[in-house]
């Protein structure tokens, strides 16, 4: 669903000036910045002067703040989900991927990421609006709306920031237990700027896919395909973990993985129902579809396992739930309730099969970012094109006779795959030839927690702590 921003409640120029002057004063770039800021504020406000006084809808604002917080909370969820699956010596390094993506992309987003994604459109390819650097153009009294209910632009900007940061955090699942931390930071910064920001502009920021009316409610392309394909490419560039696949690498704590999956489900309500942009009936249907697809996919993955080797595993249930959440992400605000169990079941089974393929092909997409997010996201995009019904959100899918929409969905999914694959390979290659992607073998053997971060994730079963260590400096 494209976000249509409408800035409103714009204060007169003098107020904008009062607001920005301290910073101007502060950074000494008085003239340049004030011109930019003043100019752009004036310019940006023109088309909205028609609605000078817009009432913020408190209910929708409450929901969107809650949703934004929920998406942020997916970071500890993802960190646990991933960390539980790696070996105990890499637990912290794996969690650190999620947390550092959060921190880094938030900073990039307010500096220029939001502007690239949602600034004035240039040729359907990218946003650009220098006055929005450091969100200077985002007056705290601006409001935006997608469906008639206005919320503060600050909230919209943060909601989108959370999408931007969770995407590279998901990618990390493909390269755990072997990537250098500094390289990860550099990769994230480049990738979010040159891959994510254009992509989000294409789909939701007024870019070419947005203009084609692609139906992607909460990020099947932008978040899911992008992270899955990005992860796959990066894992190909960085190579397999030492010992994979000859040794199987024992997960440190599936209990934490299960907790992580629960947190992800919880947070995904913000992700999906929050993508309605308001606390309305559309949010309600996104909510119910999300729930049902997650349940159906969890169940289906377990069933697939049962058919395959007569076990229903906890990791299988957790993985299936995530696969269902992924596949319903683009669809949840377009399809009827009865379609979501179908989407969920397909997601559970197809992603299970996709993960099995990895073992056959031998690449090491360690925690299956591609098998779950890439495949699930692609599937979800196509199923949206099939199951969308006009009664829900005005988009008719193939089952309502609209093959056109299906083709747009296919185009969007394929374009995303292509763009992300090329972009990720290019960025990954640059990082590889400059500072390198991979830790030295000795660090990989010792574990990244100790080798990179100088820390130990768990010390609860072993020798008395006071005996193990002595202060190294005073």
């Amino acid at each position, binding site marked *: 669903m494209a976000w249509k921003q409408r800035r409103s409640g714009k204060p007169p120029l003098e107020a904008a000036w009062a607001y920005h002057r301290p910073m101007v004063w502060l950074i000494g770039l008085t003239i340049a910045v004030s011109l930019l800021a003043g100019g752009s504020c004036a310019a940006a406000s023109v088309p909205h002067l028609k609605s000078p006084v817009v009432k913020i809808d408190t209910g929708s604002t409450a929901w969107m703040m809650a949703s934004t917080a929920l998406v942020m909370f997916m970071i500890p969820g993802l960190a646990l989900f991933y960390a539980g*699956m790696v070996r105990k010596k890499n637990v912290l390094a794996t969690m650190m991927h999620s947390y550092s993506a959060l921190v880094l992309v938030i900073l990039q987003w307010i500096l220029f990421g939001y502007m690239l994604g949602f600034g004035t459109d240039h040729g359907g390819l990218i946003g650009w609006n220098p006055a929005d650097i450091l969100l200077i153009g985002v007056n705290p009294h601006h409001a935006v709306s997608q469906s008639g209910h206005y919320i503060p632009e600050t909230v919209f900007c943060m909601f989108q920031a959370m999408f931007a940061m969770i995407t590279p955090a998901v990618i990390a699942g493909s390269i755990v237990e072997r990537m250098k931390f500094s390289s990860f930071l550099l990769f994230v910064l480049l990738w979010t700027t040159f891959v994510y920001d254009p992509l989000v502009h294409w789909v939701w920021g007024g870019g070419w896919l947005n203009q084609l009316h692609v139906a992607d409610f909460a990020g099947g392309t932008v978040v899911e395909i992008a992270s899955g394909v990005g992860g796959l490419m990066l894992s190909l560039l960085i190579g397999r973990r030492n010992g994979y696949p000859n040794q*199987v690498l*024992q*997960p440190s704590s599936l209990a934490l993985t299960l907790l992580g999956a629960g947190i992800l489900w919880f947070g995904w309500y913000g992700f999906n129902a929050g993508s309605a942009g308001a606390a309305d009936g559309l949010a309600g249907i996104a909510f119910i579809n999300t729930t049902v697809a997650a349940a159906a996919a969890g169940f289906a993955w377990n069933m697939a*396992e049962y058919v*395959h*080797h007569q*076990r229903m*595993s906890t*990791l*299988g249930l957790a*993985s299936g739930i995530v696969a269902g959440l992924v596949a319903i992400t683009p669809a949840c605000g377009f399809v009827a309730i009865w379609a979501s169990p179908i989407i969920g079941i397909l997601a559970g089974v197809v992603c*299970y099969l996709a*993960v*099995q393929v990895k*073992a056959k092909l031998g690449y090491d997409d360690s925690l*299956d970012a591609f098998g779950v997010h890439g495949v699930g996201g692609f599937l979800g995009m196509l199923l949206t094109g099939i199951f969308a019904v006009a009664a829900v959100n005005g988009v008719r899918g193939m089952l309502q006779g609209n093959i056109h929409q299906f083709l747009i969905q296919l185009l969007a999914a394929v374009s995303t795959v292509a763009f992300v694959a090329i972009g990720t390979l290019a960025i990954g290659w640059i990082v590889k030839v400059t500072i390198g992607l991979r830790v030295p073998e000795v660090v990989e053997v010792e574990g990244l927690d100790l080798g990179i971060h100088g820390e130990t994730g768990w010390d609860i079963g072993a020798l008395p702590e006071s005996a193990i260590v002595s202060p190294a400096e005073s």
Partner: protein
Amino acid sequence: MKLIVAIIQPFRLEAVKQALTAVEVFRLTVSDVQGYGRQKGHTEYFRGQAMHVNLIRKVRLEIAVNEAFVQPTIEAIKSGARSGHGGKGQVGDGKIFVISLDNIIRISDGTEGSDAI
């Protein structure tokens, strides 16, 4: 003085302890180990990939005893550690190793030799 080291099934520890108490062996040291023997391991799954775990959790007992207690201790361990029905042993029930001790010292009061057991 002998050091009796036994590797047993974890869930037989309580029974072994009771059997030892019955023959008046009241002191022992236990630790977590993993064993690899005739007993086959088990299969775990990770997203559909089966992996075979061939080390099995066992408990290791260390008991220092005087000569007179060696045989009763061994018998007690054997009787407590057998896991089959009706006291029949099974593959995986473990091993007992007997090692000679040159000396034993009780730290608290410095007693040495058999008295320190």
